[in-house]
């Protein structure tokens, strides 16, 4: 109070100017370091895998393999930004897959119409489950950990019950294109590339759409605001209950999309394909730098988190690391990524 206002002003101005300069310098340094490290890593990996890594076929494979996890992780990103968590998405892949396969077989439709109708059904089931996840959270203030854990069990149980524990094979071949075909095949053929799998196209669309939703829309801003300070968001007139509810609905819907792609890939809806997927999606979000405390996060960073995990799995397969060791490495990488981010924040905090 009694300090000279002029001094305070001067000190403030000085510190913030320095801060800005430091921040932009850090940004450039980080980008350069990240790029160099990444290129070095690719060269090393390619060397150890005897040139198998940097082939069009393998890179396409990596992208195809991360499709499901990346889509789940996009929805999970929204939930985690609000300081919540969605443990049900793994089971919801299964439930939506089984429901969609049964719907497709019973609907009497075929062709693109069947694909569209089935997808709508799957997404609606996922969104409905998300709504059930959200209501006790926003109405009774229950922890999302509990409501989504309950949904994880219920959805998995329901998927098993509906399918009698057996995969439900698809009668129609309308989904094959999504499961195995490539987009831009003709365009990329002269370059010796098979094209881009349709599933990857769907993933990219999901990533782009939700990146825009998070960064460019009012809804996205509200998600970030309520994650950062729920009370301030509420007092600013934001209907935090509605925003929070939609976050879980989005996560459920993403599980529906992932469930559809997985069903198309295996030409059947299976009740046991999603075990552990919820944790994989959380790992992708966290490796992407989104804080579990809420308030900040990025869909694009989550995509790169999923990509990093996918590349790691792929490389370990290529160099014949046994699967138990793979889990150890993966766990360690996740831990290191989060620790590095935390240390970076502390070092550059001021």
């Amino acid at each position, binding site marked *: *109070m*009694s300090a000279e206002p002029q001094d305070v002003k001067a000190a403030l101005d000085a510190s913030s100017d320095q801060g800005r300069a430091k921040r932009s310098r850090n940004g450039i340094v980080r980008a350069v370091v990240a790029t160099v490290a990444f290129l070095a890593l690719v060269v090393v990996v390619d060397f150890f895998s005897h040139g198998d890594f940097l082939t069009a076929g393998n890179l396409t494979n990596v992208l195809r393999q991360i499709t499901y996890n990346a889509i789940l992780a996009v929805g999970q990103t929204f939930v985690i930004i609000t300081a919540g968590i969605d443990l049900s998405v793994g089971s919801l892949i299964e439930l939506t897959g089984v429901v969609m396969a049964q719907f497709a077989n019973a609907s009497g439709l075929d062709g693109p119409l069947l694909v569209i109708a089935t997808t709508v059904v799957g997404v609606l089931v996922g969104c409905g489950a998300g709504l059930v996840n959200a209501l006790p959270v926003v109405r009774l203030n229950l922890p999302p950990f509990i409501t989504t854990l309950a949904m994880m069990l219920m959805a998995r149980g329901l998927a098993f019950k509906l399918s009698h524990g057996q995969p439900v094979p698809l009668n129609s071949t309308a989904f094959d294109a999504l499961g195995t075909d490539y987009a831009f095949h003709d365009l990329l053929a002269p370059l010796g590339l098979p094209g881009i799998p349709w599933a990857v196209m769907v993933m990219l669309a999901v990533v782009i759409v939700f990146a825009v939703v998070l960064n*460019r829309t*009012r809804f996205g801003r509200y998600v*970030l*605001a309520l994650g950062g300070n729920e009370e301030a968001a509420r007092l600013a007139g934001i209907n935090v209950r509605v925003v929070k509810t939609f976050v879980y609905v989005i996560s459920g819907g993403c599980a529906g999309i992932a469930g559809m792609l997985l069903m198309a890939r295996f030409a059947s809806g299976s009740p046991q394909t999603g075990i552990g997927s919820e944790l994989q999606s959380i790992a992708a979000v966290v490796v992407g730098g989104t804080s579990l405390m809420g308030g900040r996060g990025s869909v694009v960073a989550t995509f790169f988190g999923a990509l990093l995990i996918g590349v790691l799995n792929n490389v370990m397969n290529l160099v014949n690391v046994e699967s138990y060791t793979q889990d150890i490495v993966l766990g360690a990488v996740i831990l290191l990524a989060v620790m590095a981010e935390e240390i970076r924040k502390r070092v550059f905090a001021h």
Partner: protein
Amino acid sequence: MAGITKSFPGVRALDGVSFDVRAGEVHALVGENGAGKSTLMKILAGAYRADGGTIEIDGNPVTIDGPKDAERLGIGMIYQEFNLVPDLGVIENVVLGIEPVRGLFLDAKAAAARATAALTELGINLPLDRVARRLSVAEQQLTEIAKALVRHARLIVMDEPTAALTDRETDALFALIRKLKAENVAFVYISHRLEELPRIADRITVIRDGRGIETRAAADMPPDDLIRLMVGRALEAHFPDLPPVAPDAPVRLAVRDLRAASNVNGVSFVVHAGEIVGLAGLVGAGRTEIVRAIAGADIASGGSVAIDGRDVTIRSPHAGIDAGIAFITEDRKAQGLVLGMTVRENTTLAHLATYSRGPFVDRAAEVAITNREIAELRIRTPSSEQIVRNLSGGNQQKVVLAKWLTGDARVFLFDEPTRGVDVGAKAEIYALMLQLLARGAAIVMVSSELPEVLGMSHRVLVVRGGRIAAEFARADATPDRVIAAAAGVVAA
């Protein structure tokens, strides 16, 4: 303690305070909110570290690096909000952290014996196995005192100990304090209730603006002197001249018999266009709760609110904003700002639809309005893209104001608008309030700084027990009258 200084970013909270307590003495520490009492006590308790100065106990210089150090040195701290674990019983709370053990296991018998011994020594009866959350406030306080004694505290710091006690409980507390005094326990006693000080304090130190102003024996400190010393310079502080309210100014805000579960018990008042009504009162009197209920931050359980003669139903902050109410909350960090967001994002948060095209945020429009507000309110920030966490308190507060100025509110509820804000920013915030008046806004201002209430209100309403206890026109609102009404004593 001698020459203690402590600065926070942008504020020097303590500026060379010296303070001593003798064995077996009750030394009262008084001052307005923000004078530095709590900071001083937190340094003593090890919650903060002093930037400068020395602390001696029994003549030996000591350093207090954390709560454990304070405890080892025999300093017991009893905060206004108690530090009991709500789901543990009295005994477990008393021995918390120093539980007697037998091998690997807790020794419940020894714990009970120790707690009982402390309570017997105090001559008090407590339901020993009741969990803390089910104790009355007075019982919780006694538990805290027992906790301090079990730790061999020789100096006990009490922050507003009587704020939530009944008269009888207060009498019992004072008897207990006298008893402990006789055993050479020293007390630092922080209180806003000036009328009780002559009954309990041996000496009184007034601090103001982070400086120790005067220490006197309680017997030599008549209430008038005390108030004058507390308020002191602040009364000379520069408040802008309030333009008079036009005699024909319409009633902008009318509150009738407002009630809310949160300690609002039938409040009625009106505010005219171009008028500032100040709500004064002690901490916990219900001032904040009144404005929260008007704004829809808490849901009113009864009564009505009318704006420009039209009844409005406000059951959420959103409805409050729609009705034309801007609520500038007291705690900008917890309620006013999303600290991790930028100046721009915070500025537009309450009216984002205005800066959107369809569902999409129009970033150019956001930047434009934010830059306008930065210029108008002279917010010192490198750009609209600065994270508000990095701004000083005064500039953060201006961002909160910017958020509410971008709308078309006609009623502004300011809750502690200048708390933790430096002198320069204070003047700017006052100037801004005058601008709002010129636009015909009605302003309700809650403030614990008496000079501010007196200097910046056309009328002062004193709140006590969730009701309006007294109303003073500007000319009649003197510090002693307002303080007397707030404390519930008859003014001399």
